[in-house]
């Protein structure tokens, strides 16, 4: 028998400020280390340190526990010790412009190259026009043109001369030219022609024909002559352009002599500038006309062809990058090729390639929120593909899904070397492990964050320093030692365990900020215990509208809860409702009815599908307990029904199983149960009381009901003994217990509870195996045996009458 009427000291694990060696947080040193997350810290150090494929990290734990801060802190520490990775640029691929080349450069050089190429373009716009406006070029080109003109003129002049000798003239017609015989500067008329002797007519015709052929021949030669002249001019142009560009590019070649890829690109640039020297004859920034662009097929102007898209530029003094992408969409991770609208179409080039988070984090660390990645279309797939292939291949969503096949840019993939850290809750981690076989391959390091830490004197002192650090980081008012103690006590309450402290940093930070707010409202210069309590109460008050409504309805008698007298087959059970981050206890009436039957305990909640599986399991255990405890030698001939009265939503959990058993025992034995007590705790088949969750809220829930009706010293709550260490009850509850107005009993067995609820001894079997007379257990056994006998008689009678029939 272990009924324990708990003392006030057992209901609340107070933090003794006498143990503190500081008056306020101003006296505390900042905490350099994270506390309570030793396992997570070790995992982060391991994951960040190991340089093998697949050793990416998944930090699992509830939101607000401080995953990001801890991971970022250790990752940045590691990153600082590393050399900055390479710069990455995209440059024009002169052979295949739709496949821009990636260029890797030492950190800081990408930006410099970009500037140098801009300067080169500017210089070319000066140097190239200068050579083509030079006297040398003008003279040499004029010579070629003059030569062409002379050749043409000579050809025609010879024909003209020959024609004139034969009185034939070259005549322009509206659409061409012709040769016609003339007399006195006039074309001979048909009459004149007919009047000529036949021989002369024939001669004229022959001469005209001959000259016409010569003229045609000369005309045919013209394109060839022009082609030759054009080639000569072309050679001259290249020579002049090569001279202009060579000098400028040489300077850059010297500057980047140790960068082979840059030298190769500069060589390509030089060749291309010579090919496209005319682009530089127009002023800088002036684009070719639409028609010109169409005729020449120019896709890019000189301003863009030779630019360098310094996509990822590093700080030479910085370490490895640590990137957190807040919006991890597919394009934000992999990068994108932007387009601009031009004349009703979308156009792009390599200068419009934009980096993604993977580019920025390449050579360093990328931190992402797992849930955000998973809800972004294709982001998870894109991320995995990049990690598996170890390269960043930039594809639009259309290309990736093969929905669009229009020609676009295909930038050369960039090698990827990144340590990826996903932050998420445990559910996502386990779901991914279960559903995605690639997940385990890619995320080998689990960084598991604990929501609680041990509470002892040392840890309380560390926790005080943590509070001090947060106060200083957030520039809050200093907290006095009593305020710190109250925060620590509340931290234990947050994890519903008097021997533990919460490691949920956001919850802790919220409390500190709100306490600071109330202290300022109260014109306090330092945050004291009252301010902290005010912050806790205010936060509860903001969230407890539903709790108030429930309490109100109990008080008004709408929700039926008895707190006086005794009732047969009726027990006050306790449940917890969780609404968002706020949870509260609610008493519920549990009733049981019994009759002769076939060993069946009907869980009405289950029958109507309002009972969860754990609740149903708890009820089924009751049959086992009844049978084994009372009816070892006979079949249990009992049909009982159990119900949570006035519950309209699903009931889950087995924390009411002991209350249900008490209701059953009361109903079987006919012994009334005290309604001034409420019960929580699960029970096993041996009648042992097992711990449950939400013990504080449950006690406080019943206390509130009783408190409003008036505390008379008879009310109280029965809890499992193993839940005693979880008690961190409200101050008003503690005070009521201290004053003897309310009680909290801890028990270990069902028999303990029976005695408390009925005021009668439960009764233990004696050596003969019998319960003491007038004990509850004896009554229950007698009743069940009576049910069994009656059942047996009923069955025998039924079988006899059946045989007769």
């Amino acid at each position, binding site marked *: 028998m272990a009924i324990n009427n708990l003392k006030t000291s057992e209901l609340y694990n107070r933090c003794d400020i006498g143990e503190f060696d500081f008056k306020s947080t101003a006296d505390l040193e900042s905490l350099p280390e994270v506390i309570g997350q030793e396992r997570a810290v070790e995992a982060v150090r391991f994951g960040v340190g190991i340089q093998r494929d697949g050793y990416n990290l998944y930090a699992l734990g509830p939101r607000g526990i401080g995953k990001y801060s801890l991971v970022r802190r250790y990752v940045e520490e590691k990153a600082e010790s590393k050399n900055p990775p390479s710069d990455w640029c995209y440059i024009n691929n002169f052979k295949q412009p739709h496949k821009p080349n990636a260029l890797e450069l030492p950190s800081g050089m990408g930006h410099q190259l970009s500037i140098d190429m801009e300067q080169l373009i500017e210089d070319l716009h000066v140097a190239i*026009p200068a050579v*083509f*406006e030079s006297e040398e*070029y*003008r003279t040499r*080109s*004029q010579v*070629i*043109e003059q030569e062409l*003109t002379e050749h*043409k*003129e000579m050809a*025609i*002049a010879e024909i*003209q001369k020959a024609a004139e000798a034969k009185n034939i003239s*070259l*005549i*322009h*017609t*509206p*659409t*061409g*030219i*012709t*040769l*016609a*015989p*003339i007399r006195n*500067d*006039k*074309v*001979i*008329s*048909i009459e004149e*022609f007919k009047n000529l002797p036949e021989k002369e007519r024939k001669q*004229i*015709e022959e001469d*005209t*024909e001959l000259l*016409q052929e010569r*003229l*045609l021949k000369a*005309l*045919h030669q*013209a*394109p060839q002559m*022009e082609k030759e*002249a*054009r080639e000569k*001019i072309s050679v001259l*142009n290249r020579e*002049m352009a090569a001279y202009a560009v060579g000098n400028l590019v040489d300077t850059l070649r010297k500057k980047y002599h140790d960068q082979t890829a840059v030298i190769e690109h500069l060589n390509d640039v030089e060749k291309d500038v010579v090919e496209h*020297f*005319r682009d530089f*004859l127009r002023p800088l920034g002036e684009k070719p006309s639409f028609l010109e662009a169409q005729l020449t097929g120019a896709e890019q102007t000189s301003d863009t062809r030779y630019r360098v898209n310094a996509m990822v530029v590093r700080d030479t003094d910085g370490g490895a990058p640590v990137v957190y992408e807040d919006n991890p969409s597919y394009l934000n991770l992999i990068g994108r090729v932007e387009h601009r609208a031009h004349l009703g179409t979308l156009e792009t080039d390599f200068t419009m390639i934009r980096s993604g988070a993977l580019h920025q984090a390449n050579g360093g660390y990328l931190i992402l929120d797992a849930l955000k990645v998973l809800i972004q279309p294709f982001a998870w797939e894109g991320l995995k593909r990049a990690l598996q292939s170890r390269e960043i291949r930039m594809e639009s969503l259309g290309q990736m899904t093969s929905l669009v096949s229009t020609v676009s840019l295909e930038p050369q993939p960039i090698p990827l070397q990144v340590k990826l850290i996903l932050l998420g809750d445990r559910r996502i981690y386990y779901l991914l492990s279960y559903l995605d076989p690639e997940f385990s391959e890619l995320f080998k390091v689990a960084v598991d964050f604990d929501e609680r830490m041990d509470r002892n004197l040392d840890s309380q002192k560390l926790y005080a320093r943590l509070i001090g650090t947060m106060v200083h980081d957030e520039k809050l008012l200093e907290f006095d030692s009593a305020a710190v103690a109250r925060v620590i006590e509340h931290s234990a309450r947050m994890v519903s365990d008097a021997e533990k402290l919460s490691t949920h940093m956001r919850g802790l930070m919220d409390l500190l900020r709100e306490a600071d707010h109330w202290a300022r409202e109260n014109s306090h210069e330092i945050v004291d215990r009252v301010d902290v309590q005010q912050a806790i109460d205010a936060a509860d008050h903001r969230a407890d509208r539903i709790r108030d409504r429930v309490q109100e309805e109990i008080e008004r008698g709408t929700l039926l809860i008895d707190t006086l007298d005794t009732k047969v087959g009726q027990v006050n059970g306790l449940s917890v409702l969780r609404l968002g981050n706020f949870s509260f206890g609610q008493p519920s009436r549990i009733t049981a009815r019994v009759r002769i039957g076939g060993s069946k305990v009907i869980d009405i909640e289950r029958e109507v599908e309002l009972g969860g599986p754990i609740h149903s399991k708890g009820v089924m255990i009751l049959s086992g307990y009844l049978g084994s405890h009372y009816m070892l030698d006979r079949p249990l001939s009992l049909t009982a029904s159990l119900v949570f009265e006035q519950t309209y939503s699903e009931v889950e959990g087995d924390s009411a199983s002991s209350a249900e058993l008490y209701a059953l025992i009361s109903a079987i034995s006919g012994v009334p149960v005290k309604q001034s007590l409420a019960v929580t705790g699960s029970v096993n088949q041996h009648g042992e009381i097992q711990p449950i969750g939400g013990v504080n809220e449950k006690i406080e829930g019943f206390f509130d009901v009783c408190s409003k009706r008036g505390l008379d010293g008879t009310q109280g709550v029965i809890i499992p003994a193993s839940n005693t260490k979880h008690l961190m009850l409200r101050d008003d509850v503690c005070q009521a217990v201290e004053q003897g107005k309310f009680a909290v009993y801890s028990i270990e067995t069902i028999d303990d509870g029976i005695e408390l609820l009925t005021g009668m001894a439960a009764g233990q079997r004696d050596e003969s195996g019998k319960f003491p007379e007038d004990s509850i257990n004896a009554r229950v056994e007698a009743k069940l045996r009576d049910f069994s006998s009656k059942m047996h008689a009923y069955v025998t009678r039924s079988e006899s009458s059946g045989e007769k029939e």
Partner: protein
Amino acid sequence: MSELTAETIIRRVAVALDASAQNSQALQAAAELAASLQAELEGIFIEDINLIRLTELPFIREIRPASMTEEPFNIQRMEQELRSLARQQQQKLELVAREKGISCSFSIRRGHIRAEMMEVVTEVDVLTLCGPGRVSEIFSRQPAAFTLRADTTARQQARSAVSVVFGNARNEKRALMAAASLAKRLDTNINVLITAGSDAETDELQREAETILESQTQPVNYSRLIGNQLSDLVLATISSNSQVLLVNSNNTLITGEQLWHCLEQVSCPVLIVREQIAGN
């Protein structure tokens, strides 16, 4: 300037139009002069009788340089082409006249080009002619519209001066005054080419010209055509980079055949200013 101003005496500026490329230059020059004098611009399209005639000769074929094809003539096609050409020229004329804000008229004549031109000269105050096209024009009708050289357009030398022949023939100052008016409108130099037999005569003519142009604000350059030969005139016109040449119709340098030689050799339009008739 003399009280007998060009504005009061030049009312009709004619331009001979055909299909040649130089037409545009001639049309522009005539339009500028007409605009400067508030005169009427008159386009004259002459259907060359030789073109009609050669369609009757069965053995004559036309060569089309653009397509390098040959085709025999027929009278219907030729007349249709001439009508089409006339329409084009009329539209060009009207467009230019609208741009310059001057009135215009258009007429078509048929006959021998030179004879018709000579007749027109007697009818209008100024007749603008352009060269009949040098041999290279034949090739220009071929589709070779590419630019060989990489010169920027800014570097191409712009034609600048207005040249005018000034001699001792009757009433040559009319051409000089017209040149002055045109130069003022074009904001360019005047290049006065004096045709005189001796230095003394040259000096006298220069003084006379200076008197006529005394109120002229444009720079004036005087030079003497030493040999009084057509070749000197051509050379002076080309070397002064003239965009237009004005000559009095009775100037001996370009009488008869010399006019056509001149037109063939100078690459700018030639404006023939009719000798002023007393009382006109």
